[in-house]
């Protein structure tokens, strides 16, 4: 390591000689405009091919550039436009060019390293780029919803319909069983936290029968805090072949977010106002009873029914029938001053109501991005965002107290009117043991979760050497991500559900403090020759993360009291952690053969305090090559072949130490060694990926096709192994095993029609993967994600099987007649299929007719099994509307069939937007000439679902985000369709 350090120092010493020298040159001026108009193109890059000379256009689209004497070639490009390369004859000093809009995203810069990018034309890996426009076409509560259906190779699944988020992203399949399993988010170079903290729902639902938070809290992952409107673009690095540079955080992919920056030109004020609402999009159908007598006649227990007669109530509609008034107010100011300052300031105020009274998600954010050019060599940038969100997600998911509304309704024959009486009181629930009434719970029980977050990043890029054919830049980058998550559950003793408790009245108080810091230094050297351009970069990075979550649960709380200290009985818990990592990297990129061959080699060496040996550095190399064919078939504009290999890691999140566990005897806390033996030699999981593919552009830029095939091998999985009980331990964390995943990703972009003011732009994506357990040094096991037993269905990790296989009882060793049960001894436990989809497709279409635009996005997931335990509630209590079907399910189940395992495939109309660009005259009139343009949109999200799945939504997970076995559907918060009217104006 000393050698690496001295190399970096040597490079730094070079910087003492700050050089600026050019050969004989002439001054070329010009203007860049948008093709088909005279609209100036601001901040377009103009560079001299084969040199390091370049500049950007000003607010009039003008530029001035020193160009070497003699003939030269200028390249003009800007994100969102198709680049042009044009010859400038010797002596010419004037140069004008018009760039066409890049509707198929043919041209963009993609990330290749910590401080390097390359044109997508030369990229050697399949990196998906999502523009701000594509991301924000339809309002979404959180960023991860907005990504659904847009990234080939990504499985993005929401956990429930509750407001405020809770979405899982898996890139290229499942990459871990016990370590991190979700991609990391990097915003403006800083890794931001996406953890999920418990909100305490379990203390009243008793889903896990403890006094603390549990994995069944229906939590929100904190990517929800990111404001999609601040984003310039998102780049999705899907596998180790692209993420090796992220070291032991790269296995699960990286979502790189660049926020908007100020751009030269006049200051623009962008204002967007959205109004909307939501509707229950699917509901369970309960059996209809009109009277207690009818209930008794149907064979139900008559206890408590009395002589009550009432109409048949549609509990789902009555309870989940709120029509919230939702809104988003977004404003941003963007510009730059003449003294080199640029700025982007934006604010958001958002409210999304739930389908249930008092459920909502509120978010406010303020972002200030500032850039300053100091002299000709130093660029400084500081980005800051302050976010607050307040969420009340109500009660959903598994419960053991009858507090879940759907659990309750499945027990309650529909003739009972459970709604609030005119006098303000609520009737007791009749058939639930504690008399719980969901309407009363929704009124009385509060579950507020307040999150305060600050994201800050800063960078300084200093140009140490600037010559005609070489540059050397020093980049210093740092950032901080800190949030406080304050969650409460207030369940007063006045709620019927509390009154059966020995100590009625429950309070839960959680304070989570998460702080992550990132620091990096990089040197980047570009060496340009006629024959090649070589880019060398090297640097180091540090990441530190501190966590501290303190929770207290109080039982026996007087109604109205919200101070947990006043509880009769309290239970406290705290979890803390510190993780430190350091990495060094060096990367060489080589562009040659007329910019047709692009070669990359890099290695990242990283240590992490969670590894057994915290001082040991693990190496993560990558190699890639791409080649653009010089001789092209007919109708072909570009044809590129690419291949890449990379290795990334997945640092352990625990398992290193043998902790002491506390036990209490006679009021004295004692400690003894945990039964989980620590593994001092624990090391990161390692993912090695080989990726190959081709990229085609043809028909004059009107068609684009990309195909990628990859093989990913994950070794040294972090597993739990049983140990001999005579050692005093029950298990130990170990490294071992192997998973091999093969996958395919296809993208097809077309402009089938582009005639006058009418255009049709179509994008289709396809992806599939299969991950198989090829080695497993421990006996097969059910992953810890949670399940309700093999009779219903659970994940199972076994050698030779798919990692995402679903195991369930499905068969009986002896013949059974309908209605006859298969004894436990005769039940056949087997693998019934794959919980992962066979394939996924996304269909996006934009139709532009003059000022009108119609956009749609369909998300198709073919296959994939899930366990519909919600049905079990309806079947068990006999209140499913389709009684014959309920009987059939029950008969199958007791006969040993996997009756609750269902196909979760679906097609969803994720997004639909109809937009109208107001005529300039009207805009001018409305805004007294101050507005540049104005737009009105009508949009909807999740408007329609086509599925054979019989539950509320095929995309649910009772245990929240989980690497495996997330398919448990237990009385979730129902899905909703949302509608928005958007007015956008730019001043």
């Amino acid at each position, binding site marked *: 390591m000393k050698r690496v*350090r001295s190399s970096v*120092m040597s490079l*730094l010493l070079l*910087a*003492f000689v*700050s050089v600026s020298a050019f050969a004989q040159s002439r001054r070329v001026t010009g203007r860049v405009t948008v093709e088909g108009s005279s609209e100036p193109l601001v901040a377009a890059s103009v560079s001299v091919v084969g040199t390091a000379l370049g500049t950007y256009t000003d607010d009039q689209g003008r530029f001035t550039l020193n160009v070497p004497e003699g003939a030269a070639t200028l390249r003009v490009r800007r994100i969102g436009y198709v680049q042009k390369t044009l010859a400038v004859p010797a002596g010419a000093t004037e140069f004008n060019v018009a760039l066409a809009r890049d509707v198929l995203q043919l041209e963009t810069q993609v990330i290749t390293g910590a401080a390097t990018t390359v044109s997508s034309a030369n990229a050697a890996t399949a990196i998906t780029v999502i523009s701000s426009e594509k991301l924000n076409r339809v309002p979404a509560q959180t960023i991860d919803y907005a990504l659904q259906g847009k990234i080939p190779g990504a499985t993005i699944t929401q956990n429930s319909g509750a407001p405020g988020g809770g979405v899982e992203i898996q890139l290229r399949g499942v990459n871990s069983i016990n370590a991190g399993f979700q991609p990391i988010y990097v915003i403006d170079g800083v890794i931001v936290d996406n953890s999920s903290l418990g909100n305490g729902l379990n203390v009243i639902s008793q889903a896990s029968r403890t006094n603390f938070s549990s994995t069944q809290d229906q939590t929100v992952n904190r990517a929800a805090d990111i404001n999609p409107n601040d984003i310039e673009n998102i780049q999705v690095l899907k596998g180790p072949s692209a993420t090796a540079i992220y070291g032991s955080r790269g296995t699960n992919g990286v979502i790189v977010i660049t926020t908007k920056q100020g751009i030269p030109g006049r200051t623009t004020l962008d204002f967007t106002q959205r109004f909307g609402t939501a509707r229950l999009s699917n509901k369970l159908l309960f059996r209809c009873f009109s009277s207690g007598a009818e209930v008794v006649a149907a064979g139900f227990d008559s206890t408590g029914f009395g002589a009550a007669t009432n109409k048949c109530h549609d509990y789902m509609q009555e309870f989940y029938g709120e029509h919230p008034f939702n809104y988003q107010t977004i404003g941003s100011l963007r510009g730059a001053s003449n003294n080199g300052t640029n700025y982007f300031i934006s604010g958001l105020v958002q409210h999304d109501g739930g389908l249930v009274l008092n459920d909502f998600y509120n978010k406010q954010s303020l972002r200030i991005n500032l850039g300053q050019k*100091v*002299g000709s*060599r*130093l660029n400084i940038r500081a980005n800051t965002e302050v976010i607050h969100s307040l969420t009340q997600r109500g009660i959903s998911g598994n419960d053991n107290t009858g507090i879940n509304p759907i659990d309750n309704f499945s027990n309650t024959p529909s003739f009972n009117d459970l709604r609030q009486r005119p006098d303000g009181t609520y009737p007791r629930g009749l058939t639930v043991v504690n008399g719980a009434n969901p309407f009363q719970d929704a009124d009385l029980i509060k579950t507020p979760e307040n999150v305060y977050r600050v994201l800050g990043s800063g960078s300084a890029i*200093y140009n*140490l050497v600037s010559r005609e054919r070489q540059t050397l830049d*020093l980049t*210093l980058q740092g950032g901080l991500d800190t949030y406080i998550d304050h969650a409460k559950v207030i369940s007063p003793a006045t709620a019927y559900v509390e009154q059966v408790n020995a100590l009625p009245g429950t309070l839960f108080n959680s304070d989570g403090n998460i702080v992550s810091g990132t*620091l*990096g*230094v990089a040197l980047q050297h570009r060496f340009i020759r006629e024959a090649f351009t070589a880019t060398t970069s090297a640097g*180091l990075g*540090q990441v530190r993360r501190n966590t501290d979550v303190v929770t207290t649960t109080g039982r026996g709380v007087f109604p109205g009291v919200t101070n947990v200290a006043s509880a009769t009985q309290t239970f406290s818990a*705290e979890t*803390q*952690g*510190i*993780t*430190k990592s*350091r990495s060094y990297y060096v990367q060489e990129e080589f562009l040659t053969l007329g910019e047709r061959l692009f070669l990359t080699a890099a290695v990242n060496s990283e*240590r992490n*305090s*969670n590894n057994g040996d*915290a001082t040991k550095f693990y190496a993560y190399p990558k190699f890639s090559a791409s080649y653009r064919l010089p001789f092209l078939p007919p109708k072909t504009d570009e044809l590129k072949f690419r291949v890449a290999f990379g290795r990334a890691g997945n640092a352990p999140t625990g398992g*290193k*130490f*043998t*902790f*002491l*566990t506390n*036990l*209490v*005897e*006679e*009021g*004295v*806390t*004692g*400690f*003894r*060694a945990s*039964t989980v*033996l*620590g593994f001092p030699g624990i090391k990161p999981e390692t993912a090695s990926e080989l990726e190959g593919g081709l990229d085609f552009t043809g028909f004059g830029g009107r068609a684009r096709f990309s195909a990628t095939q990859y093989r990913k091998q994950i070794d040294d999985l972090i597993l739990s192994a*049983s*140990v*001999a*009980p*005579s*050692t*005093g*331990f*029950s298990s*130990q964390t170990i490294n071992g095993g192997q998973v091999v995943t093969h996958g395919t990703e296809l993208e097809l972009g077309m402009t089938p029609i582009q005639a006058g003011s009418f255009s049709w732009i179509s994008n289709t994506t396809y992806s599939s993967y299969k991950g198989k357990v090829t080695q497993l040094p421990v006996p097969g096991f059910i992953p810890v994600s949670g399940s309700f037993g093999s009779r219903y269905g659970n994940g199972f990790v076994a050698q030779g099987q798919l990692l995402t296989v679903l195991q369930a009882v499905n068969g009986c060793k002896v013949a059974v007649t309908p209605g006859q049960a298969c004894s436990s001894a005769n039940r056949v436990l087997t693998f019934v299929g794959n919980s992962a989809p066979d394939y996924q497709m996304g269909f996006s279409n934009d139709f532009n007719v003059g000022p009108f635009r119609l956009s749609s996005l369909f998300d198709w997931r073919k296959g994939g099994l899930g366990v519909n335990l919600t049905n079990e509630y309806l079947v068990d209590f006999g209140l499913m509307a389709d009684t014959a079907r309920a009987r059939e399910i029950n008969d199958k189940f007791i006969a040993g069939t996997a009756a609750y395992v269902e196909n979760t495939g679906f097609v969803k109309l994720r997004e639909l937007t109809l937009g109208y660009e107001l005529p300039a005259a009207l805009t001018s009139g409305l805004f007294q000439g101050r507005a540049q343009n104005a737009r009105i949109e009508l949009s909807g999200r999740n408007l329609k679902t086509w599925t054979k799945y019989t539950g509320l939504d095929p995309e649910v997970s009772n245990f929240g985000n989980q690497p495996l076995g997330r398919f448990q559907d237990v009385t979730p918060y129902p899905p909703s369709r949302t509608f928005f009217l958007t007015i956008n104006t730019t001043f």
Partner: protein
Amino acid sequence: MKRYTTIALAVGALALGACKDNPVANPIDAPTVDALNGALTPTSLRQLVVGALAQDRTTWNDVQSAIEAGIFARDVYRIDASEPRYVTETLGGNPDPGSFAGGRGFAGYYTALRAENNLLNALASAGTSQFTQAQLTATMGFVRTMKAYEYWRLIELRDTVGVPIQSDVPTEVTDVRCREVITSYIIALLDSALTDFNTAGAATVLPVKLPTGFSAFGRDYNKVSNLILYARAWRGKVNFYRAINRKTPNAALIPSVIADLTTALGAGPGAVPASQFKFGVWYNFVAGGTENQPNTIADSKIGLNPLVGDSVQAGDTRASKIVPRATLAGNGISTSIT
């Protein structure tokens, strides 16, 4: 421009200076086993002793469907899933090298043994700034007595099948040793404990306060003088069973049995009357202090032979879950003790 160059260099050097940062992040969420050595204080010692004893009680509490009592010295006939005579038991779980049968009480006693072995290691490295040498030695004697007790319960569970003797190395799996070896090992542990007690001196008091169950017959077992009696009682009992072992009877042990038990029960002032012989140090399942539920059995029933019903203490939270049962049957065998 040189100014900026200097700034850039200073910042770069600052970043490189961060290389000095300690790469190790010590766990802060909970103490680790490693942290015990050389760091014992009176408080932490008490916590570790209570941890081992509480584990014992938890293990005992976890043995359901058994004829069980709260008295440490009572013989127990357990019929549960870890009974190795059931041929089906080996089919019930993953075979493991340490117990060819299942877990239950078996694993729990070894967890307690691990706690006690860790404690002995910690005591060996404890300095005398926090304790007197006599206190440390006395505590070692107490821990060895408890180890002897765990092994007795284990061999009582497995009988002629034998059990392993736990290694000090956490990952080391040792061979299964036969009953005779184990009982000899138990006696060796008790002899060693008695040596510790005698070295510490009868007047020494343990630097920790034991649970209230260590107060039978009006004796305070925090005092070494009484712990000597307790260890001798165990030695007498174990040697008695060695003496009458059907396979290898050893009548020569009987005089020492009589001597140990006579000493333990006492002949003069403070002697235990015959009517009290059936009592002794006991597990306290009565809620106290901040402990709300010393009995963790949620809804299972504990089968208790009426003959030992008198060992249930007043306020025992297990009481409502106890079903008097003179005959136990299951898995193909049954037993009646009336």
